[in-house]
């Protein structure tokens, strides 16, 4: 009675065909990248050593290590976080807890989408015009970090808003009914329940910030510095710009060095992202509501 008719069979074989086609597409999107990453590891791993990570470059950057670039990236990321996390979390609290559903809130959302979509080189132009020239920070860590902070602000806002909204409405209602103000509710109930979710967003932002190159090129990062930065008004080297420099600007560069720099950069970024994903999965498993 339930035997497949020719039409059923035709439909089923068509389903199998499309399943195969889409599966093959998935594979052909992922496999080349895996191969490329494999090549990076294969060629870059031999260069990486304690000395490579913790000494200064020598001989016009063709030898020695990448320490100033590594330190510079960490400094840039930290200053950027100090600026963007409080602002981003505040924006997310406003959007999730206060904002009414009207044209003004839609405008804010559109602005966030655009902030994320503006080309990174335009952010660089803005950083140069605003922070370096108008506010007279000069090309400095401060100017570069603020440029990065504005560029990655949407990452914090979007992920924080999501984790705030995943706190059930009933929690808030229970708290309001006790006579608590909005802020008391947010501070005692909403934020404690969302804090790990916010952390995943912050880690993602660190990873984005560390990898960006264009926005820091004219605002604070330089090709080479003979000394380490002493404060936020100094210029700095950065890992991402260093990769650009060693792979395009330096003649007679030993082939392995840029591979090593690329591997350190990508290792840092993927580690951060994996940590963020792992934290998110742990959270999902733990959630009681």
């Amino acid at each position, binding site marked *: 009675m339930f035997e497949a008719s020719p039409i059923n069979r035709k439909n089923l074989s068509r389903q199998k065909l499309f399943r195969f086609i889409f599966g093959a597409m998935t594979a052909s999107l992922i496999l080349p990248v895996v191969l490329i990453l494999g090549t990076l590891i294969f060629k870059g791993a031999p260069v990486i050593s304690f000395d490579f990570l913790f000494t200064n470059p020598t001989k016009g950057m063709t030898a020695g290590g990448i320490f100033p670039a590594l330190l510079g990236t960490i400094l840039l990321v930290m200053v950027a976080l100090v600026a963007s996390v409080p602002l981003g979390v505040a924006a997310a609290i406003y959007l999730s807890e206060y904002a009414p559903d009207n044209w003004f809130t839609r405008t804010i959302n559109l602005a966030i989408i655009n902030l994320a979509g503006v080309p990174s080189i335009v952010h660089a132009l803005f950083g140069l015009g605003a922070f370096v020239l108008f506010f007279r920070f000069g090309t400095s860590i401060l100017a570069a970090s603020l440029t990065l902070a504005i560029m990655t602000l949407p990452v914090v806002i979007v992920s924080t808003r999501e984790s705030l909204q995943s706190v059930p409405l009933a929690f808030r209602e229970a708290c309001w009914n006790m006579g608590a*103000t909005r802020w008391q509710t947010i501070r005692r109930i909403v934020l404690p329940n969302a804090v790990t979710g916010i952390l995943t967003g912050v880690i993602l932002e660190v990873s984005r910030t560390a990898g960006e*190159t264009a926005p820091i090129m004219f605002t604070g990062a330089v090709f080479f510095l003979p000394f380490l930065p002493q404060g936020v008004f100094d210029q700095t080297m950065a890992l991402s710009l260093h990769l650009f420099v060693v792979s395009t600007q330096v003649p007679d560069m030993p082939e392995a060095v840029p591979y090593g720099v690329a591997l350190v950069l990508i290792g840092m970024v*993927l580690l951060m992202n994996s940590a963020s994903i792992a934290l998110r999965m742990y959270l999902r498993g733990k959630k009681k509501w």
Partner: protein
Amino acid sequence: MKKPTPPSATLLDFNKRNRDWYLDKLVQALVFIGGISAIVFIIGIFVFITKEGMGFLVGDFSFKEFFLSPNWRPTSETKATYGILALIAGTASVTGLAMLVAIPFSLGTAIFIAEFATGKTREFLKVTVELLAAIPSVVWGFIGLAIMNPLIIEIFHVPVGLNVLNAGIILGLMAAPIMTSIAEDALKAVPDRYREAAEALGATRWQVIYKVVLPAAKNGLLGAVLLGVGRGFGETMAVLMATGHAINIPTSVFDSVRALTATIAAELGETAVGSPHYKALFTIGIALFLITFIINLIADLVVRGVRKG
């Protein structure tokens, strides 16, 4: 989501306007400042790049030369010309090829992940796609330079491997994971009862996808494509390193080109602040800002269309 409203303070609060009341109002004002910061920054970006580029727009700028001349010779001592046609052609050819690669593959991958894959496979693919989207653009540029370049020279027997093909593939691989995740979200947003209803009528999985899910998700998918186009269009480091950076209107995929974004990145460091060249680069920035703004606006309108329906 419908916004929750707490009961008005006057009902509950007997000694109103105490310390907590003022604190509450203060925080409300502070987070409001956070909320409008995004708008302030977008306006700020436009104002500051316009301020720097304005001198060119009112001075040496000629609409005809700027958009229709392929001669970008800002450093010429006899007569500097600022035509961005060749740069537009460079950006368009690379982005076009990238989208030719990325759109079908990322939509296919999104369909596979959202509709065919199950359990562990699905989780694995989702995480992988997310990680691929995180690879920094300068690393992609390096891949174009160090891995794709010799590969293209060897396979196609061409003298230079830094060209439209190289940058197009790199940009395609870069944009695909982002498009895949947005497209997958759009497919996931189609309610399961649509699928169940179709399956109850005896439809196979493919029939469900083709006749039910895709039509229902088409606005979201279009939004994903548009955001991918915007991303590819604005990409800087990868196209700077993989295109060959030669001013050229391409006639084949093996020609080197130069992109709008890459021109700013390569030349801004060498111009004097306030010079016509410097201002012309900011004017390209204004054009880039406006074009991505329009793309994002359209994408947002298209996606919102699906939420209302």
